[in-house]
């Protein structure tokens, strides 16, 4: 039967303020712990669950490489319906480059015989879009990014995919399995957790593996520092109470004859 691995990342909720860490190399850990699953990965997980529905007997693993708090996101994947949750545990909150993360995923997945690996098209935090295609390369899987549709046909060892291009055009490919797809948002509408899964997830143990089980991959690049973007000219911002700002805006719109 089909075995699927979904790569999920825990990210800071996008409504939280982003503060640069004193090391300058990544951001401060959120004091309120407001982290969640990367939205692009939610689409990847949903797609895996839909494949399982279409092909009963399919097995869906969800895996995250991250510090201790990432366990919560792996558990979320179980609540949504993944069969097993795997946490590659990092010792600290340091940022890892895509190559390091991809190496660790491949080290775990290498001998597990996954037919299909799904990932989000990118992470909302570091916006690299590299881990998926790198895992594919290390494992020798065929791959496609920005996938907006996939189709499996029984007894065919290929997966038919459409990837999205600029302007919403698409190109179609047939990939021989095993394959890795990085999934674009909008491919489906992610579900809410079902109560039965939530209850099961509560008692189910995660498979936790210390990242140091494997030799650390030699980094190929590193973050020098994070910087704030150039400040916005203060003249851009309207000042005053909400009503005063609205009055100023309406005045501008009228002066330009838009209103």
């Amino acid at each position, binding site marked *: 039967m089909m075995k699927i691995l979904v790569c999920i990342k825990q990210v*800071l909720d996008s409504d939280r303020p*982003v503060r640069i860490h004193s090391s300058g190399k990544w*951001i401060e850990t959120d004091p309120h712990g407001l982290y969640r699953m990367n939205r692009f990965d939610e689409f990847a997980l949903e797609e895996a669950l839909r494949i399982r529905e279409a092909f009963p007997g399919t097995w869906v693993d969800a895996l995250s490489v991250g510090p201790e708090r990432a366990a919560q996101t792996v558990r979320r994947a179980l609540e949504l319906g993944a069969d097993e949750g795997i946490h590659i545990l990092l010792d600290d909150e340091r940022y890892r480059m895509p*190559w390091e993360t991809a190496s660790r995923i491949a080290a775990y997945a290498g001998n597990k015989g996954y037919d299909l690996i799904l990932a989000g098209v990118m992470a*909302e935090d570091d*916006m*690299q*879009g*590299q*881990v998926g*295609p*790198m895992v*594919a*390369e290390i494992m020798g899987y*065929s*791959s*496609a*990014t*920005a996938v907006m549709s996939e189709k499996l046909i029984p007894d065919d060892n290929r997966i*038919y995919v459409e*990837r999205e*291009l*600029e*302007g*919403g*055009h*698409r*190109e*179609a*490919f*047939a*990939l*021989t399995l095993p394959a890795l797809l990085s999934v*674009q*948002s909008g491919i489906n509408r992610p579900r809410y957790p079902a109560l039965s899964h939530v209850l099961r997830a509560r008692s189910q143990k995660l498979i936790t593996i210390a990242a140091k089980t494997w030799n650390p991959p030699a*980094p*190929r*690049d*590193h*973050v*020098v520092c*994070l*910087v*704030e*973007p*150039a400040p*916005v000219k203060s003249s*851009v*911002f*309207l000042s005053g109470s*909400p009503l005063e*700002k*609205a*009055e100023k*805006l*309406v005045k501008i*719109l009228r002066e*330009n004859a*838009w*209103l």
Partner: protein
Amino acid sequence: MAMMRCRDNEIMVVAELLEGRILPVTHEVIAFALALRGGDSQFIRMIVPGRDIQEMANELADAIGIDVIALEGDHLDPYNAEAWKMALSALLAEWNPRYVCIPHTSLGCDFAPGLAAGIEASCITAIEGVCNREGLITFTRSIFNGKVMMQVASDADMTVLTVLPGVFKAEEKFPTFPDHKKGRVEVVRVPEVLQKTRVLGMIRAEERDLDLSIADVIVSAGRGIGHEENLALIRQLAGLFSKSAVGCSRTVCDLGWLGYKHQIGLTGKTVSPKLYIACGISGAIQHVAGMSGSKYVVAVNKDPGAAIFQMADVGIVEDLTIFIPLVIDLSQTDPHSPA
């Protein structure tokens, strides 16, 4: 043809073609490579992958004045990630350039990370800037939808870079060799090998609504509208203007609040209205790619750090559910009537 093999500091630019024509984004990447090389074109070489491209490679070398490698293979056109990665990695192993520059397009994003992974190169994506920090070359890219910038440096001998479109200004003509007027062309033929990836063809996007392209004013909704019901506010606001239309971020489409024909951005529609009002949109590069040509931008966002303010002419830091009703109210009152 006898040609000098690559020197240590060489930069290779992978060209992107569409229907046999080089895309403007390739010129931007050359401009980037020049910036990286301190304006010296001698060490820049272009790779043009495709089928029957020798003639075009000649034209390019003449026109731009840099050396071109025509990477010839029947299976390289149309684009096939597997075939491209295989052909390019063999070429790069032989030439061993310091940098490989690729447009950060849907195509570039598809093969660059895998290419780098396979040849032990560093990979740095969506580059918006390059600087030399006391001899250390660092590349700048946006993270957190533009709220913070990240500077990355390579530790590898070879580095694959994807360059964000629209940042580096393309030039028509580049400085040429001192003793040659034209670039030279080398043809490298790639043998066809059995592929695990089969190309099935292009599917064109549905014709999108013309409303957005002809509108003078676009009022655009982002996730920050919070609920589908708040689209009523966006529609009402748009209704105040003549020749207006409602646009949105991709997220709003993904949530099912508006159809994809309203989506503005990289994978949606590109617009350039006289006035663009962004409501609850963070200003991710993929969104900005579709609206940066707007003549005047008003942004309403409750987060003063939102990247959309970087390109706004007027910014309002407010909760839009409070602010927009005020604007609607005020603009419906006659400005000349005594309050």
